[in-house]
Each structure stands twice: as structure tokens, then as C-alpha cells.
């Protein structure tokens, strides 16, 4: 027909590689860092984790003189140091949801599943890479938050805790573990819901709406249910003190990991079964 020769033939590939889990993980790392939303969310999480404790410490230090002894006694230095985790978990969770729903909303998921037609390696790689990145950023963040807030509160002996005191290191690092697990839980929710708004709403409902609603229940019910909510079980991981209404750090961790594993398993089953 046409006598025009093609502008360029397609260059051949010397060695077509096989698909492996490790390679899919590398691919997911590229996907993660190459999006602006990822960089901003992670920056926000780091900023909040460090910034909020610094702010609270500064306010506490400057108002110390005007506080009643009773009020002073209520200040918990570790609560101040980990105050940022309460807010930065939202940034981590939103990113966790987006890591997967962003692919559904843009259609990228079709390209991903064409490259990796067995699909599950994509979920494992997303979870692994995201957990690693979150943890690697969260550990220095909580450490900086702890030592910075302690430095600001240095003048008030009553608010000084040693990192080597029982439970302190566990609580601080627990804050980072909690953030990582929140991210994984949110990622699983995103994979189940496949919709950004829906995923974030579901996460917010579970972590921010349902817990205060529990206070409307009779207190015997509260005591039975509250500690086992994902948010409360997770909180036990990074709380220094554990009253009768909360789980021990180990039990809290086990419960929260349990929720995350179940959510991830549901996500995996649906991911394989559903049409894309």
C-alpha cells in the first residue's frame, strides 16, 4: 500500500525480564515518590508530628506560672511529646487511601494490572513500600518531637522524663509504629472501597466519629467496647499509662495489627475477584 517507510522501527529489548515481587516493589517506590500529593502528605505528617508538640510545649512553658498546681499536675510530658501523632495520623491515613484509590480514579490501575496480571503483588508491594516509608519518616519525627518538647520544658523539672525510664522509649517508638499501622489500615480500606472520598470518609468515621459516640453508651458498655476500637487499641501502643479502660501496649498492638491484617485480607480477596 503506502510506500513510506516507518520513521523508526521499534528497538528490540535485549533481555526481557521476568516479573518478581521485588521488582514490583521497586515500581511501587517509583510510583510513590513521583507524585506531588505523596511528598506533600508525608511532609505534612512530619511537620505535624514535630510541630504540634513543640507548640504545646512552648505554650505550656510560657503559661506555667499562671497555672494552678492542680492544672500543672495534670500536664503529661509524654502526651505533649506525642500530641502530633493524633493529627499526623490523618495525613498518613489520607495518603494510605490515596496510594490505591488514586490508581482507580485515574485508570492507572488498568496499566498496573496489565503489567502485573496476578494483582496481589501490587497490593503487597504498595503495603510494604508505604509501611517502610512511613516508619522510616515517623521514627525520627517522634524522636525529634520528644527531645525538642523536653528541651523546651527543661526549666520545669516536673515535666522532665528520661527516655530510658520504663515505658518511655516504647511509647515514643510506639507512636511511629502506630502511624505505620494507621497507614496500612487506611490503604486496605482504600483497596476495599476503591474510591478516594469513600475511603477517607470510612477511615474518619472509624477513627474520629465512632469513638466519641461511644460516650453515649452506658459506661459498662463503654468499658467493654471502647478498648477494642481500632483507634483506642492503637492508642495503647503509644500511651505511657494504662488505666482500667484501656488495653496493655502489647494487647493493644495485637488488636490493632489484627484489624489491619483482616482489612488487608478482605482487600486482597476483593482485589483478585473484582473486575477492573
Amino acid at each position, binding site marked *: 500500500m503506502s510506500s513510506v517507510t516507518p520513521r523508526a522501527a521499534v528497538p528490540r529489548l535485549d533481555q*526481557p525480564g521476568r516479573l518478581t515481587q521485588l521488582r514490583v516493589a521497586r515500581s511501587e517506590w517509583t510510583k510513590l515518590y513521583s507524585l506531588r500529593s505523596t511528598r506533600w502528605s508525608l511532609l505534612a505528617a512530619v511537620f505535624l508530628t514535630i510541630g504540634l508538640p513543640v507548640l504545646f510545649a512552648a505554650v505550656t512553658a510560657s503559661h506555667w506560672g499562671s497555672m494552678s498546681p492542680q492544672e500543672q499536675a495534670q500536664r503529661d510530658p509524654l502526651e505533649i511529646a506525642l500530641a502530633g501523632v493524633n493529627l499526623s495520623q490523618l495525613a498518613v491515613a489520607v495518603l494510605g487511601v490515596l496510594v490505591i484509590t488514586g490508581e482507580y480514579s485515574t485508570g492507572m490501575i488498568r496499566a498496573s494490572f496489565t503489567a502485573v496480571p496476578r494483582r496481589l503483588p501490587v497490593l503487597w508491594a504498595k503495603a510494604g513500600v508505604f509501611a517502610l516509608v512511613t516508619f522510616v519518616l515517623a521514627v525520627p519525627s517522634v524522636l525529634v518531637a520528644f527531645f525538642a518538647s523536653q528541651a523546651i520544658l527543661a526549666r520545669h523539672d516536673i515535666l522532665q522524663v528520661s527516655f530510658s525510664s520504663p515505658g518511655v522509649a516504647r511509647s515514643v517508638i510506639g507512636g511511629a509504629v502506630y502511624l505505620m499501622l494507621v497507614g496500612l489500615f487506611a490503604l486496605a480500606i482504600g483497596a476495599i472501597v476503591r474510591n478516594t472520598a469513600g475511603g477517607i470518609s470510612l477511615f474518619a468515621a472509624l477513627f474520629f466519629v465512632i469513638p466519641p459516640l461511644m460516650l453515649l453508651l452506658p459506661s459498662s458498655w463503654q468499658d467493654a467496647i471502647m478498648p477494642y476500637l481500632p483507634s483506642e487499641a492503637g492508642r495503647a501502643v503509644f500511651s505511657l499509662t494504662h488505666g482500667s479502660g484501656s488495653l496493655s501496649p502489647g494487647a493493644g498492638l495485637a488488636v490493632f495489627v489484627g484489624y489491619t491484617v483482616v482489612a488487608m485480607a478482605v482487600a486482597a480477596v476483593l482485589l483478585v475477584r473484582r473486575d477492573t
Partner: protein
Amino acid sequence: MIEATGLTKDYGDKRAVDGLTFTVRPGVVTGFLGPNGSGKSTTMRLILGLDAPSGGDVTVNGKHYRDHASPLHEVGALLEARSVHTGRSAYNHLLALAQTHGIGKRRVDELIDLVGLHDVARKRAGQFSLGMGQRLGIATALLGDPATLLLDEPVNGLDPEGIHWIRNLLKSLAAEGRTVFVSSHLMSEMALTADHLIVIGRGRLIADASVDEVVHRASGGAVRVRTPEAERLRDVLLAEHASVDGGEPGLLEVRGLTAEQIGKAAFAHGVALYELTPQQASLEEAFMELTQEDVEYRSPESEVVVEGAVA
């Protein structure tokens, strides 16, 4: 090589693909034709395993697509729906997909140059025009140097230069021995690129034949005859078991006899002929005739296939 047997897909009550059986062979460009909404895109998703069939089976190069050790080396796909994260650059999009198979950065650069996206490779794909998006999709499809190419409406949104480029690319890929399966709702496009056609309508197979055969079948071997003695010739030809239609006076459309047979019969009976023309339908006409019954969406007055309907 793509082999489908009894491939069926239901979405709720609606049957999108209905018992398709066909084979797409290497070495030629196979056109996949059908009106919008006839099930072309669904069939492509079934081939890739993005959707699971409700019945039947489809394999690529002898296996289910998902069972290949190196999927991108088996099939390169350009889907009709956009499959690119809008926030990622073309370069990083290709790199991320390449990395799943251990394909290096050099290959990514080569393909970006090949499809002519060099200047915009670092721009976010969300800012791409339709044509640039198509080029990125083609680079994605070629990433793994695949034995089989699956391209859904590849010329959509391309400028004339780009369309010309695609046509030649498809032909040279087929000439290299690859399986090239290209869907389109545009007959004219397929007439220029395809050697073989698989035509579907409402999810069912209508034709699986070479382009020439499809055209021949549609024209039904009619021969146009112009003669001053139309009535007499009609009787002669009817006696020879031909079927004869007459529109205008002095004009006959004859089926069942070749032009030679008609000429000889006319000569034997002393009928003068002014014109004796075997009718050749255009591929476009052939397509319209084939799919007449199976068009999903049509405008009431013109009965033309509606553009842009979701496939």
C-alpha cells in the same frame, strides 16, 4: 496469537460479549471492528484478564495472560480508557511499569523518543492532549517488546501525521512477525491498515475473514448491466437462474451470474450491452451492511452510529 473460545461477559442483565470464538494470528494486522458499544473494549479487557469472563476462555500465546512469567513481553496493550495517573510524568509512568519487569531506564528513554514525547516527558500526564496521551499509551504498549499488541482505537485523537505514523508502525510490527490486534469503529481506517477482520455487533461475531472477503461478501457478487432491451435480457437471465433487480429503466442488477456469463448470454441472444460492471462495495458499505442489525446506539432519523458512546 490470541485464541478465544465461546468468550462471554455479562454485566448484570446485559450481555456485553456473547460467545465469541476467534483466533488472531501473528504476522498480519487484524482489525477488530464493530459499532460503538459492540463489546470491543470488553473483549480486550477479557484478553488481559482485567475483567473475568462469565463464560468461555481466552488465551494469549498459548496461556492465560496472567500465567505468563513476563506478561509485558507477551502483550503490549493500549486501552481505550485512559490508564495513566494524571499526577505523574510520562517518564515516571513508563519507568514504574518498566521496573515491574526489570526493564531499564534506557529502554524508557528510547520509547519516549520513538513516540515523539521527548520534550514533554517530564510534564505531568494530566496536562497532555488526547494525542499526546495516545502516544504515551503506545510507548507503554511497546515497553516490553511484546509478541502481541492489543490496541483499542489507537488513532483516536491523533493528528494526520500521527495517524500515518501509527499505520506504518502497525504494519512494520506485523511484518516483524508479531500479532497485531487493533480495534476501531472506523472502517476507512481499517481498510488502510488491516489484512484480516474480525467484525462484531452486540457482542456477537459477525465476520472473521480477510478484508477482501468481507468486501466481496457484502457486495454479494452483483453485476450492473445497462442495456436498451432490459425486459428481454431479464427473461434470458432469469432462465439462467439469476436473480435480477431493476431500478431505473434500462438498468439491471444481476446476482448469481458472473459478468462473463451475463456477457455470453446477452451475445447468444443478440442483446446489446452498454455497460457490464461487477459491483464492488466499499469496506464502509460492507461494514454498514454487516452491522445493520447490530448497532447498539443510533440516532432515530439517520440511523448512523453515535460517536463517543461508551464501548
